[in-house]
């Protein structure tokens, strides 16, 4: 039980670190330190990674709030590279790429915080049985 939560927390914090790194790569592109190739490549990876987190929280039967946060993160992360890809056809829509980046960061942060709460809420000794723990669906 605790192992699942620790794995979820590790994934969530790793993802948050990835988002911060991706923001740095955007700065690298903007300020001429390099081209946009790495930012674009990492972006497609980060766009699909939250789906893994969502599957994880669904399979592990986490609570409703965690599922909603993970779902929100998955949706915002999936559309993020699509927004950038729309720059030629719909530049106004593409202009929301940086704003959605903030949304992705914010949700990733909330998911990471939530994952720590779940780890901390796990009782030290778990008895066998069907008793639902805090943060998990009964």
């Amino acid at each position, binding site marked *: 039980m605790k192992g699942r939560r620790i794995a979820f927390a590790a994934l969530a914090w790793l993802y948050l670190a990835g988002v*911060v790194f991706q*923001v*740095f790569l*955007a*700065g*690298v592109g*903007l*300020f*001429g*330190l390099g081209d946009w190739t790495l930012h674009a490549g990492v972006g497609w990876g980060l766009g699909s990674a939250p789906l893994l987190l969502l599957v994880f929280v669904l399979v592990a039967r986490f609570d409703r709030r965690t599922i909603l946060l993970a779902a929100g993160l998955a949706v915002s992360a999936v559309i993020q590279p699509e927004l*950038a890809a729309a*720059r030629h056809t719909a*530049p*106004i829509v*593409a*202009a*929301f*790429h*940086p*704003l959605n*980046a*903030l949304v992705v*960061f*914010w949700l990733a*942060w909330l998911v990471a915080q939530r994952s720590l709460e779940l780890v901390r809420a796990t009782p030290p000794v778990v008895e066998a049985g069907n008793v639902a723990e805090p943060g998990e669906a009964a």
Partner: protein
Amino acid sequence: MTTGRMSPQGDPMARALRGIGPARLLFLVGAWLFVACVVVQVVLVGLEIFARLGGSIHRDFAYVYGWLAPVLVLLAGAARLPTRTRTLTVVLLVAFAVQTVLPSLRGQFPLLAALHTVNAVAIFALAILVARRATSSIRQPAEPDAT
């Protein structure tokens, strides 16, 4: 439907607002206004990059709302907010000041200039934290009158 008027003494909202004090209320409004300005600022940079919005509206807008950061520091002190909230507000001010300098380092220290985007995210996170703490300070029950 209630038609009667509640006296100021009996109205819980009026009592709560009186207990909050103007500095705390102004801090709350200012903190959320700052968050809104950061969001607008990020939309502006998106418009400049992707929609080729001319001029330097992203840079200019920073100087429009930047004065809020030092004002929040002063209000946090005047409102006697908890030490952690005041510290976060000072950190927000420092991060904002650094943010205005970073792009100018593009020529000499491009790696530092590239941190402009990361620092922007830090400012957003700090602004949200400060605003949420300001909201919490309002929700705390008002202290009873001394009289």
